[in-house]
């Protein structure tokens, strides 16, 4: 409790409250806009936060991360366009509720469910973080290597694609992480790796260029191929009374919200889990529990309340391993990990112990951010969805220019060239159905994994037995093997998608 009060004392300053508002507002706007995801936005903004106070910068970037799930709801309900992948399921029953004249109720149920999930998720992080951080202190390099391998294996399993294709992306990401000077060689001369003799590459591949190329530029190319569809917006209510759900809708939302919160948080904590998987799972669970399964797809309140709650809980859940173990559960949290590092903060047990003002300030900002999101998402939603009316002719050049500013600020003109190259690569990989998020995640995890492997082997004098020397490592390696073996099973995610 003392720690949380410390956190609130850090956040409740005009500057931090403003950055929290900017982050949550941007997150909502990005959630509304199809095509511009949190990854590209955080990558664009990351270099701009370098001159900011570290706590303010992290509060804003995290606000974007958890704000996205709120924004995606509005377009799913009012337009049947998911602003974000985690809002795809909301299109089914949320949009049908809106067509049945219950748009206001659908938005309110989704916003309140999201608020409850976000707040309970934050409370869970507050209480789970200190013991988890203490547990992680017991990890040596060998155990950490096993943990990372288990996490990567879990990510490959949950990504749902064909195993070899997924592994190829993981391998490619790990390899990209090796490009540049060896960070562990303690000599006066640099040891360049995989640079093909290019001096520009000695500094490694700029993460901002990689992320903006793969998720910003490639998205613009992707959007250019799509024919423009006329948007049919179902107008949200004009008065606040129109947003109120009736008693029956409230009664039917209570249990899905409760289940969605627990399920979403648990799935979010798993590496590779995250908001999208949480929402799909919740939809499947609600369909099983619901007394009126025939209403699913036709405007069932449960089909909206459960997944909408679960995706927010999943977003909060994914922050737990990041903050306490320095282990990102998905691509966006991998980028957040880099943002932390740029500001000289290493998320993990040391952060909880040595920089409590940053850690608890961030947690406290999430409580406040969730209240801000609730306020933003009800009365202002009619205004916010107007963003979608900005024509592509103006929106696309604007996004491209923002991407250039982000990349140029991070690495100059050469980084822009790298981003463009990754833009084309990302576009072709997307067309071939490769998972680009995995590439980013593996790229960020690669250097950490390498450090653990090399430290462990240095300690053991080159004996690989160190990786199976204690029960914890063995357990984690077995878990990794189980995930990989399970990934070989066909149709493992198909049934879920069919349910949805």
């Amino acid at each position, binding site marked *: 409790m003392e720690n949380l009060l410390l956190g609130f004392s850090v956040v409740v300053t005009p500057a931090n409250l403003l950055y929290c508002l900017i982050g949550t507002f941007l997150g909502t706007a990005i959630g509304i806009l199809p095509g511009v995801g949190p990854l590209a936005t955080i990558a664009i903004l990351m*270099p*701009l936060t*370098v*001159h900011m106070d570290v706590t303010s910068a992290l509060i804003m970037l995290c606000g974007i991360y958890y704000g996205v799930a709120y924004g995606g709801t509005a377009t799913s309900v009012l337009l049947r366009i998911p602003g974000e992948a985690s809002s795809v399921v909301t299109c089914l029953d949320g949009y049908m509720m809106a067509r049945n004249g219950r748009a206001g109720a659908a938005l309110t149920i989704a916003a309140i469910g999201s608020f409850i999930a976000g707040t309970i998720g934050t409370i869970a992080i507050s209480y789970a973080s200190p013991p988890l951080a203490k547990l992680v202190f017991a990890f040596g390099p060998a155990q950490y290597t096993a943990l990372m391998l288990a996490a990567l294996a879990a990510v490959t399993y949950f990504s749902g*694609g*064909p*195993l*070899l*294709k997924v*592994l*190829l992306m993981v*391998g*490619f990401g*790990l*390899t990209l992480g*090796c490009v540049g000077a060896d960070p*562990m*060689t303690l000599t006066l001369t640099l*040891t360049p*790796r*995989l*640079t*093909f003799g290019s001096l520009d590459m000695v500094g490694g591949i700029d993460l901002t260029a990689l992320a903006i190329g793969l998720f910003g*530029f490639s998205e*613009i*190319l992707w959007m*250019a*191929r*799509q*024919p423009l569809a006329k948007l049919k917006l179902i107008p949200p209510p004009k008065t606040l009374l129109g947003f109120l759900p009736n008693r029956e809708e409230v009664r039917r939302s209570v249990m899905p919200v409760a289940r969605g919160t627990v399920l979403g948080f648990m799935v979010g904590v798993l590496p590779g889990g995250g908001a999208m998987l949480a929402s799909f799972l919740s939809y499947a669970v609600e369909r099983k529990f619901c007394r009126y399964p025939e209403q699913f797809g036709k405007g069932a309140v449960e089909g909206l309340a459960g997944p909408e709650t679960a995706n927010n809980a999943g977003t909060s859940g994914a922050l737990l391993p990041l903050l306490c173990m320095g282990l990102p559960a998905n691509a966006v949290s991998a980028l957040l990990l880099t943002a932390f590092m740029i500001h000289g903060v290493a998320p993990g047990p040391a952060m909880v112990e040595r920089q409590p003002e940053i850690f608890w300030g961030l947690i406290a900002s999430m409580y406040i951010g969730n209240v801000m999101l609730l306020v933003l998402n009800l009365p202002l939603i009619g205004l916010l969805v107007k963003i979608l009316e900005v*024509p*592509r*002719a103006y929106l*696309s*050049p*604007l996004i*491209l*220019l923002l991407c*250039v*500013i982000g990349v*140029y*600020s991070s690495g100059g*003109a050469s980084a*822009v*060239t790298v981003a*463009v190259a990754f*833009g*084309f690569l990302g576009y*072709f990989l997307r*067309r071939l*159905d490769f998972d680009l998020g995995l590439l980013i995640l593996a790229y960020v995890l*690669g250097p950490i*994994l390498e450090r653990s*492997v*090399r430290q462990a*082997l*240095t300690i053991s004098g*080159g004996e690989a037995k160190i990786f199976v020397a204690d029960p914890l490592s063995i357990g984690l390696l077995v878990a990794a093997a189980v995930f990989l073996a399970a990934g070989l099973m*066909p149709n493992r995610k*198909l049934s879920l998608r069919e349910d949805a």
Partner: protein
Amino acid sequence: MGWAMGRVAMPGRVKERLPFLANLTLSLLLLWQARGLDSWSILGPGPGLFPQLTTAFCAVVAGLLVLFPGLARTPDKSAEDGETEIGPAERRLFLAYGLALPFLALASVFTGFIAMSAFLALALTWGAERRSWRGALVFGLLCGLAGVVGFDHLLGASVPATVLEQSILRLFR
């Protein structure tokens, strides 16, 4: 008949293998680079150990996919149904956006941000999306100014700068 069907099916199979073949080639190239590094030194594991492991891993996985491309198919998608044909309008738009990206790379070296914004808006908003050229030009110039003043001056970001941008920045300092 069977021969004819075989001939029709071949390009599809080759096409399916192409990305994995490209991946295999790249992985082998990187592995060749990594092999030149020490995998072990007197202090312990050397700089080459991890890159050798990851590139060899990529090469093996890509090799398997070249041999058995069916392993990369999603259960609900056959190899042929992934592609959707696009019309001439979308193709033209895609080409314009595709050319805009290398332009951005070149412009960030040779032109300043304002010229880059103006040319980009003219190319995309007017040229590709068929809006009025005056509107596109004004939009581009405004974006350029907003980038220089808003992002460079106020937020401390950097934008590609020439004499024009530096003169504008001097007005604000």
